[in-house]
């Protein structure tokens, strides 16, 4: 078990190191902040003055080494534009994004697991087909289209829901629906397939033969076994969403989240914020994967024992 944990940690460390390096060089390739907002209408000498003030005048290798050593000592630097610690800026924005992510995950699980089970049980009837068509649509339509349609209907036309920010519970409805579309579609399909696999197993027949009511057979024997497959899929989907999914949706709903922050920092070339922001998202994805791994082990005794 210890070697397993150590190996996992080492792999995480290497992944993070690669991400830090990649982001560092990718941002530097795209110009510097003085070329953009800070530098409109100033002379070359003044440009150099600002570049030096922001510590961008040394060679890229030196900057990289300086950055690495500060990262190892837990210092992620100050934003070029706001001149306060990037950790403070990113944390300020992480919570709204996390709330939205949790909201979307809860909604997805509550909706798509029953739908998936329904689609599996009624796979030959019209119910099954309708569920699958809807799921397919959800998968095919991008989140920003769903978002804009929701805004058009429920805010612009009907004026039922607020569109800006994360102030109240009502504010969560449209962004949650918008980013859940793809997730609901994916999880519904996976639930259906997993259930179909399980439904044809011998132990299901045995359970029925014992005279258990059908709903107990489905939920206890069926879903429990299907959940093993589901867990890893849900984990991957959430991780993908955390990494990329909400940038556009946050822009549409003026959500004060990390997606909005990353876009702005990229446009303004605020490297320290961008670096720490991407790193934080990467850590979040790695943590989610680790949590899923553990949950997986709990759901399936065979894995727990094999890894021991």
């Amino acid at each position, binding site marked *: 078990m210890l070697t397993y944990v150590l190996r996992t940690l080492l792999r995480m460390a290497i992944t993070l190191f690669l991400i830090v390096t990649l982001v560092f060089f990718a941002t530097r390739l795209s110009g510097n902040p003085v070329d953009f907002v800070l530098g409109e209408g100033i002379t070359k000498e*003044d440009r150099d003055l600002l570049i030096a003030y922001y510590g961008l005048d040394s060679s890229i290798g030196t900057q990289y080494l300086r950055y690495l050593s500060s990262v190892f000592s837990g210092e992620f630097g100050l934003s070029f534009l706001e001149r306060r610690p990037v950790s403070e800026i990113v944390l300020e924005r992480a919570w709204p994004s996390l709330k939205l992510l949790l909201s979307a995950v809860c909604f997805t699980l509550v909706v798509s697991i029953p739908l998936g089970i329904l689609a599996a049980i009624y796979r030959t009837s019209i119910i099954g087909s309708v569920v699958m068509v809807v799921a397919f649509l959800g998968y095919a339509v991008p989140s920003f289209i769903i978002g804009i349609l929701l*805004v058009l209907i429920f805010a612009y036309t009907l004026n039922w829901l607020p569109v*800006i920010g994360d102030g109240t519970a009502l504010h969560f409805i449209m962004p949650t629906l918008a980013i859940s579309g793809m997730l609901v579609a994916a999880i519904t399909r996976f639930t259906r397939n997993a259930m179909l696999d399980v439904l044809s197993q011998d132990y299901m027949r045995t359970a029925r033969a014992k005279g258990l009511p059908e709903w107990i057979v489905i939920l206890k024997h069926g879903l429990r076994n299907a959940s093993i497959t589901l867990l890893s899929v849900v984990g991957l989907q959430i991780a993908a969403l955390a990494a990329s999914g909400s940038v556009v949706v946050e822009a549409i709903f003026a959500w004060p989240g990390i997606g909005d922050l990353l876009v702005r920092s990229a446009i303004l070339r605020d490297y320290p914020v961008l670096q720490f922001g991407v790193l934080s998202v990467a850590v979040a994805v790695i943590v989610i994967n680790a949590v899923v791994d553990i949950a997986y082990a709990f759901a399936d005794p065979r894995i727990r024992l094999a890894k021991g």
Partner: protein
Amino acid sequence: MTKLLATTALASLMATSAFATELTVGAANVSSYLDPGRDHSNVGSQFYYNAFDTLIAKNHDTTETEWQPGLATEWKLIEPTIMELKLREGVKFHNGADMTADDVVFSLNRMYQADFPPYQVRARDRLENFEKAEKVDDHTVRIHAKRPEPLWETLLNLQQVMIIPEDYTKSLAGDPDKLEHDDFEAFSLKPVGTGPYKVAEFVPGQTVVWERFDDFWGEKAPLDKVTVKHIPETASRITALKTGEADIVTNIAPDQLQLIENDPDMKAVGSATALFHVMIMNVNHPKLKDARIRQALSLAIDRDTLNEALWGGKAVVPSTHTLKEFGELYQPELTTFEYNPEKAKELLKEAGYDGFEITYDTAPGYYTNGLLAAQAIMEMWAEVGINGKVNVQDKWSGNSPDMMTRNWSNPMYFADPFGCFGVMWAPNGPSESEGRFNTDEDYAKSWEQFRYSGDIELRRAAYAELMERIKQDPPMLPLYRPYESWAMKTNVNWAPKPGHIPYVLDFRAGSISFN
């Protein structure tokens, strides 16, 4: 006692319901920092006028130049290079401190004698002629210029020399009695001024909240509270107006105006912004050294058609680098730039243009309609036989020797040709120092007269000479003054005032009302 309670309750109820006026603004962009000294961006300009004052104020209702007392009540030249100003008494900063001559000297010298790089950069082009400010007594200061200054009032009305508190600023970072660079950095997150609104909350890039400052020296602010929220998407900004989440929204694209005009709940106001979108041409590019080729590039562009197609005819196409905000220095009678495809063809022939490719750099979304204009310009160039190619990239290429042509903007930083053309095209200014524009002794001589002459007629004549130089050996072409719109609920009466620099959100007394 019961009666007293009831009266108090009633009074507070009335105060909140009947008289409380709050406003929410949905802005396409919110600043990352708020310090009037270091900033001259279009995004930043929105936020300073409500919270800060200058020594000399200006009537913003007109494009005519009309100076008014600000934090200084009187000012006079006591020597050709020394201005003495009497300061207004009883002025308070938002933190409760009294404004004294020390604060004024501190604010001015932070720019005049800057050693903080963001201030140095901002002061260089416009405040170079100012040596120092000094205190005479608690309510009198003197400002020393290096040489006689024809633009005293203009340059004391700048956003960059708005007044900030000395003790407060010094206390922000490190040693509370010492001035460090970090004090200025900290100030830009917790700004304090003397204006009718204080900045009650500032989340960089997200939110600015102004609250009425009851100790303001002048006419009290008409609103209790204004919240500016960042709403990046145009569609969401318009929807926020519709749902009542915003009262005013900024930066409405020209193609969205119809939607707003057709809706009884909303209206739009706009103006041709006091800035030019320009095309710049690298005079030192080996293939563009011949002025005739650059003249042809300019003559081939039908700017009126660009205006009709991209701005619905609402932009303004200039005949020379001039804006009506310049007052007595507005010179629309000069014709430096025109559309003449026949002449363009002739010039190309004379110059022996052999069809080599001419690139035009543009960022994908930085300027409204920037990419569309670039594509249309390629078609216009093709009409006269120029082989143009749009090069879409995010990076600023104006300092690259390989840059041939690209788009740029020349904002009016203050209402004088020195504050627009002058900032960008001065000898050794940004354009020349980036190696894409050359000046010589003659240019510098005309420049001297334009910048420092005390005689308006001589300044006008010198500016005409500079424009003639630009015409003969063109480094740029102003395309148009873009049209910028704000949308609001029908019951809000607000419009950008003609005497401001671009984009100022002015909510002072007399600037906003409700039906």
